[in-house]
C-alpha cells in the first residue's frame, strides 16, 4: 500500500454523546483510512445511528475529538458545511426532496453548495443516474418511484457532490425484500471503486463480501471490531455471539 491509501480520513477519539441524561455514545475510538469499508452492526438503540450522525455533525458530540480529513468538527458553521460537502449520507427513509424531480434532487446541492453551473450539474446528475441504473426516471417525482429506486437516487444524489466518504444508515431496512439487492449492488460497485464507506446494516452477506472491518456496538460502546472473517467465525465477546446467533438464525 502506498501513502495516499494509508491516509486516515476519520478519527474519533474518546467521543461521548448524551441525550439529556441518557448516554448514547461512550468513549468511542475509531480510525478509518482512505478506501476502507466499515460495517457497523448491533442491537436497536445501541447508538449506531448516533455514531455515524456524529461524523457529519447531524448530532453534536459532547466530549472527545472528531477529525474528518484533518479538519476538527467544532461549532464553526462554515467549517461544518465544508466538511459535510465531503461526506455523503444515505438515510433509511431516503429523504428525497418530494417537490423536486429526480434530476432537480441531484442538481440542487451541486449548484447551491458546489456552485457548479446548471449544465454541468445536469451532466453529473445524469452520469450518476446511469451509474445507479435509472436514467429513465430523471423527470419523475420521488413518489412515482419504487423504494429501491428512490434509495438508488438518494445514493446518486450524495455521489453527485463527489464526497470522499459515504455514510449509510440502514439503507435497506425500509425496503421490500425484492428491492434490497438492487441497492446492495450499487453499494458493492461503489465499494469496488474504492470509496471510503461506513455502513450501518444488518445485511451480513454484504458485510462478509465488502467490509474490511465489522464493528459491533452495544449500549453506546464499540464492543468488538474485527475483519469479517474473524468477526463471524470467531467472535470474542459473548454479547456479539448472542447478537450474531439472533440475526443469523432468521
Amino acid at each position, binding site marked *: 500500500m502506498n501513502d495516499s491509501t494509508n491516509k486516515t480520513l476519520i478519527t474519533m477519539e474518546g467521543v461521548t454523546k448524551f441525550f439529556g441524561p441518557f448516554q448514547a455514545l461512550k468513549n468511542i475510538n475509531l480510525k478509518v483510512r482512505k478506501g476502507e469499508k466499515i460495517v457497523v452492526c448491533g442491537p436497536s438503540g445501541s447508538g449506531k445511528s448516533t455514531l455515524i450522525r456524529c461524523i457529519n455533525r447531524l448530532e453534536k458530540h459532547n466530549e472527545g475529538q472528531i477529525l474528518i480529513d484533518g479538519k476538527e468538527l467544532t461549532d464553526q458553521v462554515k467549517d461544518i458545511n465544508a466538511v459535510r460537502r465531503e461526506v455523503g449520507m444515505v438515510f433509511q427513509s431516503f429523504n428525497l426532496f418530494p417537490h423536486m424531480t429526480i434530476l432537480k434532487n441531484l442538481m440542487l446541492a451541486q449548484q447551491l453548495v458546489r456552485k457548479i453551473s446548471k449544465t454541468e450539474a445536469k451532466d453529473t446528475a445524469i452520469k450518476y443516474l446511469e451509474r445507479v441504473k435509472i436514467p429513465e426516471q430523471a423527470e419523475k*417525482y420521488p413518489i412515482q418511484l419504487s423504494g429501491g429506486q428512490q434509495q438508488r437516487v438518494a445514493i446518486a444524489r*450524495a455521489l453527485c457532490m463527489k464526497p470522499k466518504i459515504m455514510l449509510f444508515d440502514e439503507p435497506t431496512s425500509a425496503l421490500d425484500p425484492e428491492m434490497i439487492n438492487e441497492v446492495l449492488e450499487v453499494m458493492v460497485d461503489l465499494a469496488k471503486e474504492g470509496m471510503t464507506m461506513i455502513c450501518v446494516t444488518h445485511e451480513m452477506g454484504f458485510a462478509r463480501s465488502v467490509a474490511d472491518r465489522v464493528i459491533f456496538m452495544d449500549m453506546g460502546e464499540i464492543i468488538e471490531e474485527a475483519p469479517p472473517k474473524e468477526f463471524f467465525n470467531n467472535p470474542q465477546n459473548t454479547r456479539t455471539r448472542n447478537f450474531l446467533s439472533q440475526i443469523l438464525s432468521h
Partner: protein
Amino acid sequence: MSFDLHLIVESLPVMMMGLGITIKLLIISGVLGLVLAIFLLLMRISGKWYLNFPAQMYIYVFRGTPILVQIFIVYYGLPQFEVVRDSVFWPILREPTGCAILALSLNTGAYVSEILRGGVLGVSKGLLEAGSALGMSAYHKFVYITAPIATRLALPAYSNDVISLLKSTALASTITIADMTGIARTIVADTYAPYEIFISLAIVYLIFTFGIQKLFGLIERYLGRYTIREQPHE
C-alpha cells in the same frame, strides 16, 4: 310575511356596486397580512427569544380579541392621540378604508402566521437533515426545502383564512364604509326589508366564497402535483 322578489332584483345591482370595495379590502389586507405573517413566522422560528416572544404576544393578542374591537380601536381609538393625528400615517388613518385595511391586515397576519408555522412544522425533519448532509446552509434549506413544502401544506388552511377575511371585510360597514354589506344596510334602512336584502347579500358572499375555494383548489392541485403517484397524462 311577503317576500319581495322585485326588490331583490332591484337592489342586487346596487349592492354589487360595493363589490369593488369588498374586493379591494380583501386583496389589499390579504397581501399586507401575508407579508406581516411571513415576518411574524420568521420571528417565531428564528430560535431567538427576543424575536419569538414579541411575535408570540402579538399573535396571542390579535387572535384573542374580536376583529370588531380591533377595527374600532384603529378607527375610533387612534385619533384620540395627538401624535397619531400629526403623524405621516394620518392621511391613511383618517379614512375609514385605511383603518379597515390596517385592522384587517393586522388581524389576518396573526392568523396566517400560525397557519404558515403549521406548514413549517409539517416539513419532515429528515428532509432538512438530508439538506444539511449535502452541506446546504440554513438559508438554502429554508428557501429550497422548507418554504415550498410548507406552502403546499399550509394552503388548505390558508384558503379557509382568506374566506374568513372575506367575511371580516363585511365589518368594514360598521365604520361607514360602503362595501356590499354597507350598501345593503343602507338599503335595509330605506326599505325596511331586511330578509330580502340580507338573504340576497348572503348568497352573493356564498358565491364569492365558492369562487375562492375553486381558485385555491386549482392552486393546490398545481402545487401538489408531486404528491400524486400516477404519471400525469400529457
